[in-house]
């Protein structure tokens, strides 16, 4: 992956990620999030993680974002009216976020391996999905089944939560 493509997709991801927070209209935020996820999926593929890149598009940009847009439409949420901004709280929140970013950057700066480039890969005889699937069903069989139970519980929970309460 060339440097040029990396920076294009990195800037795309970060700019549209910032647009999620900065837009006042929730629909615009959700659509910015879709573009940000597509850029992130391209970054995954630049790291030779094709399966993860594909499920990023399928699960996030497909399923999760449709769910978000559907809820926004269902609740008929309009753009936030300009209420008086609490400048002290806003400055505090921004300050904490900036301090966090500086801390992470200092940690990465002290991390020796961060300056090294990625080692070359051998040509694999099997594809990406096969490799992940073998690991998933051999080494991670129990966590995989627990995740299945978790999704089932979440589904039942959602049905219970969204049922109209009898008065």
């Amino acid at each position, binding site marked *: 992956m060339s*440097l040029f493509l990396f920076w294009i997709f990195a800037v795309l*991801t*970060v700019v549209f*990620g*910032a647009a*999620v*927070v900065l837009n006042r209209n*929730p629909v615009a*935020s959700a659509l910015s*999030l879709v573009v*940000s996820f597509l850029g*992130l999926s391209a970054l*995954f593929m*630049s*790291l*030779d*993680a094709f399966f*993860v890149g594909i*499920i*990023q598009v399928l*699960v996030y940009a497909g*399923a*999760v974002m449709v*769910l*978000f847009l559907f*809820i*926004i439409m269902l*609740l008929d*949420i309009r753009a*936030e009216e300009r209420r008086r901004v609490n400048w002290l709280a806003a400055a505090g*929140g*921004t300050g904490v*976020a*900036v301090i966090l*970013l500086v801390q*992470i950057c200092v940690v*990465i700066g002290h991390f020796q*391996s*961060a*300056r*090294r*480039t*990625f*080692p070359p*890969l*051998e040509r*694999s005889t099997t594809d990406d999905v096969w*490799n*992940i699937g073998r690991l*998933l069903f051999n*080494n991670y069989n129990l*966590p995989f089944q627990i*995740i299945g139970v*978790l*999704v089932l519980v979440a*589904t039942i929970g*959602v049905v219970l*939560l*969204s049922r*109209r309460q009898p008065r």
Partner: protein
Amino acid sequence: MVTLGDYLIVSAILFTIGFAGVMLRRNLIVILMSLELMLNAANLSLVAFSRFRVGTNGLPDYNAQVFVFFVITVAAAEVAVGLALLVALYRARQTTDVDDITSLKF
């Protein structure tokens, strides 16, 4: 050439944007979207480390990618439950603004 640090910096910036969104925005839906952004920033650094740690067989470390798979599954379940809670809250209070929900405020 692109280094491991470049991917980690992008991941750090994305995480900070998500964190700032949770701190600054008052709309619950946007807060949930910012949470998704933070989860995805963590996924990006996991995949970058997976590609960086090439094993003896010349393939990336697939353990991290399996972990990303689990994170994506849990995040999808979390969004479903979070949005159902949001709908239930909207039914009870007709608002999605965190400033209007202060019953548990100390």
